[in-house]
């Protein structure tokens, strides 16, 4: 589904990703962990098409097509979804307001019929249950005055509405208390299927108690330096990141 080869990216001339290799197949959950500043959020941003980042080399194939040539909207339409670490506030635009346009642009790209107001509302009511979100929240200005939990639930709600093939959750656990974390993780698990895949980016192992990964990768200095099963996450939780840094710095030295 997703094949990243030797991906290199920089921002304002500073290299951040220094050759990422990763393959994600349908049905899989991959966790990407790493210390602060290792390039986790950059990887998410580059995959979603953030224009401030320059891709300096490598390739990303998504369902057989080159992802890097597509605009952010075409990436979304072809099935990439990014749940933001810091969801943006947009005064005067409600979730309901923009999501109808979004859902219909995505549907039309995928060759599906657009939803009318009635069916859109029906679809919304169905998906709202997944993250236990209230309709009144969806009518308010996006993320303005939302609690941390409300913001992240809203992200997963949008994911449910847009039905992506590949969801990238960028530190979705940051700033969430344990109850909110459970609701959000539960939502992600409900949406999981054999056809779609998830990349979970996190600093801590806790989220992975709820969203159980098939693979765990450690990102350090812009490269995936270690991969393993979910037990790697446990080890990182116990030992921290220093041993990874030591190993890596030892090898390069």
């Amino acid at each position: 589904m997703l094949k990243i080869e030797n991906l290199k990216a920089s921002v304002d001339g500073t290299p951040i990703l220094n050759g990422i290799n990763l393959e994600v197949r349908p049905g899989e959950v991959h966790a990407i962990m790493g210390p602060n500043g290792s390039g986790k959020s950059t990887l998410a941003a580059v995959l979603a098409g953030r224009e401030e980042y320059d891709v300096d080399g490598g390739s990303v194939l998504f369902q057989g097509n080159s992802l890097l040539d597509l605009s952010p909207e075409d990436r979304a339409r072809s099935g990439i979804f990014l749940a933001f670490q810091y969801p943006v506030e947009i005064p005067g635009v409600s979730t309901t307001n923009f999501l109808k346009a979004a859902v219909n642009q995505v549907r039309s790209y995928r060759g599906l019929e657009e939803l009318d107001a009635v069916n859109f509302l029906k679809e919304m009511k169905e998906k709202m249950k997944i993250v236990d979100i209230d309709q009144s929240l969806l009518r308010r200005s996006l993320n303005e005055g939302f609690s941390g939990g409300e913001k992240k639930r809203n992200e997963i709600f949008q994911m449910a509405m847009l039905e992506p093939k590949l969801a990238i959750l960028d530190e979705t656990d940051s700033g969430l208390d344990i109850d909110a974390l459970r609701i959000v993780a539960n939502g992600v698990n409900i949406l999981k299927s054999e056809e779609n895949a998830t990349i979970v980016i996190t600093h801590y192992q806790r989220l992975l108690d709820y969203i159980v990964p098939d693979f765990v990768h450690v990102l350090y200095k812009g490269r995936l330096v270690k991969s393993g099963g979910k037990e790697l996450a446990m080890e990182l939780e116990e030992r921290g990141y220093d041993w990874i840094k030591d190993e890596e710095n030892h090898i390069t030295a």
Partner: protein
Amino acid sequence: MSEQNSTILNVLQQQFADLEAKMNGTTNSEAHLVRKSAFEAVKTNGLPSRKNEEYRYTPLAKQLEQEFADFTVNPEIDAETTCPKQLPDLSGSFIVFVNGVFNNELSHKLKQIGVKITISTSQQELMKNSPVSEPSADVFSGLNLALASSGSKIIIEKGAVIENPINIIHISNTEKGKVMTTSRHEVILGENAQAMITEVFVSTGGNASFTNSAMEVSVGSHGILNHYKVGLDNDSDLRIDNSCFTQHSNSVLNTVNVNFGGKLVRNNLNIALEGEYCETNLDGLYIPTAEGNIDNHTVVDHKMPNSNSNELYKGIMGDHATGVFNGKVFVRADAQKTNAFHSNKNILLADTATINTKPQLEIWADDVKCTHGCTTGQMDKEQLFYLRTRGIDKESAQKLLLKAFAEEVIEKIKDDTLRARVSAILDDNLNR
């Protein structure tokens, strides 16, 4: 007489002489002497050039010189001038002027219980109906006083609650040539009365027009006035409007001023809070066209204690458009316990677009709460990226964000019909 606009002053001098010629011996009346001295002042001072601080970014005099140096008289217009398509479904009283001439066919419902509407179709009537007052410092206000030959006077009786809006529609029909229009209106809202007055400026035809309109409004104590001004000018229209409001104690004035076009549009909005416990909400939206210029100068003068004023003006400028905002707030020594919150926000869509913004606060009292500020920026890249990651194309995402930005002002229009209409006009403008 200043050098650079001497030709246009000759044209205006001729206009004034033409008016006097029609007055059959009433040129010595007291009212006419006020007008005469107003015109003398215009001649002495000249039209304001860009050296004048108040017109630094708004070359109205220069544009007039260019477009109206050869002007003599308004063309005859076809009888079948119709109300432009932008104005369906507005309800209430319609007072319609076409090229400054009251149009009886297009006007309707001039009688409402509690309202007395008097139309003046000549300068004599205008003087009889509304005793002329001294013009404000603005030269164009003096010019209006001197040249106005039509207008209306609207009196809302004490205690009357007028449910139906009163609409004053200014139509410039330039299909047969250049048009110059000067009209003057007076509104007196009685004590404890409530009303809604909407002024619409609209034009048809491709020739240049110059509209100089003025409105004097008195809001009686405990009265509530909703005042809306909608400018739908064409690319060849020059327009200046001087609106002066006087608020008496415990009165509320809500004024929303939206402008979507014009070659050059200048609004002077002066609000004097003469009484205590007044509330003033003044909001504005300006979206000039590609080469257009919209200039809003507002003055809120707190003269007495315990009043609140809130101002929000927002602008969107693209291409080579220019926006000007100058918002003055005075809090006089007697105006203790004043709350005044004023803000101006702008979005520039292109490097070639311009905004000149100057909020000014002058406070002589010592127990007041006042804030003022302005922001100018491009479209928020984070917001744009967020919407695009949801599958919305860039152009639609931009429109969505601009609409949200502008709607904050349009939402202040309390009348559902007018608000929906203005919102639809906004959509048309964002889609062009």
